[in-house]
């Protein structure tokens, strides 16, 4: 049971890190954003995991519930907010990527950097 009790956290940590790795190491801008979503999704799992109560139910009063145990509603509220923040960031990031593609005709960071370097040299 000791192992099971931490399994959720460990998976969350590993997911977090695979997303984080994609953000740092990948050079494709869309892939970076996908990594960022993965990174954030793992944090959602971390929060929701700590809100679970053994033998509890979703925190909604039903007619039959006199002596119910509820799971913690607060992390759920926080994560609802965080999910919305996440999709907002992704949408804005994608708009920037689309504009980048139109201006540079590539979405690979290395190629963009190369073009920028040439431009910097040309302007000096």
């Amino acid at each position: 049971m000791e192992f099971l009790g931490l399994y959720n956290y460990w998976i969350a940590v590993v997911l977090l890190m695979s997303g984080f790795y994609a953000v740092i190491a990948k050079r494709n801008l869309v892939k970076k954003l996908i990594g960022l979503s993965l990174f954030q999704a793992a944090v959602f799992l971390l929060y929701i995991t700590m809100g679970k109560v053994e033998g509890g139910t979703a925190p909604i009063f039903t007619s039959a519930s006199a002596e119910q145990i509820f799971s913690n509603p607060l992390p759920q509220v926080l994560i609802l907010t965080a999910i919305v923040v996440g999709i907002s960031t992704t949408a804005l990031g994608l708009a920037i990527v689309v504009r980048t593609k139109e201006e540079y005709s590539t979405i690979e960071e290395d190629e963009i950097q190369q073009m920028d370097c040439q431009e910097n040299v040309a302007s000096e």
Partner: protein
Amino acid sequence: MNAIFGIFLLTLMLITAIAVVRTRNLFVATTLMGIFSLLLAANFFLLDAADVALTEAAVGAGISTVLLLSALSLTAEQEKPGHRGRLLALAVVLVTTLALLHATLDSPRLGDIDAPVHQHVAPWYIENTPTAIDVPNIVTAVLASFRGYDTLGEVFVVFTAGIGVLFLLGHYPHKQAHKPHEGLRHYLIQRLVGRTVIPFILLFGFYVQFHGDFGPGGGFQAGALVAAGIILYALIEGTDRALNIIPKWLLNGMVAGGALLYGGVGIASMLMGGNFLDYSVLSSDPVAGQHLGILLIELGVGITVTGVLLSIFFAFASRKHF
């Protein structure tokens, strides 16, 4: 039984996530992310977070996938090989992983009712929701009233993203050259299935909007669902026809109007002698005031979320393809 199913889901998520990172095809990565979100939603459901599960399914698997696909159609489908600084990235990631794993060793175990999170603020919400707000769904009570200011901020985050996308992509430089988007109008089966499903999606969206006090749901989920229904219509019939039904001025009005409605409720409660977002003063009976306030702000949330998601989708869809 639940525990075993949970472990099964988590393991599947892990495999999906690794596949997402490894694949070079961005289309595949996007599809896998959709699957990942559904698995995550199922997992949230097991962890008693019905509202979050519904949102993750609608936003993560639905809206986010559609946005990524429209962005991919404008950019590139394949990721070029080669990473620089891979070792540094691995080192940073490794240090962070070890730090977090170290932290979990002292964490309360999953489901432990004696954990500090379940002691202090949360029981107060469970205890006081019936008397102070009297809605069955405690998540709605906390979201809309106890922490209503956070939710106001959240609506404005969505609003910000909406105007950001419109600012960046909202003007159409090649309007003449733009040929009307036909969608899937000539594909009989897709069209037939789509047209049958859309009314039900919209109906479910409205149900989720107005039933959010009683069951899982609320403005965000409803907004995402209604937007998904209309996006489906746009995919089938073409964006131009969809834009005829919901013109741009209406979308702009929805984007700003919902946010104004939410903030307006806050200002109204100030004018009526309460603090900002204190719904109790909106009616002679405090509990009735709370009900009215929650109804109005959830409506504001729903309107802005629908408006923003549709504006973002149309901004991407009407962009000239390269």
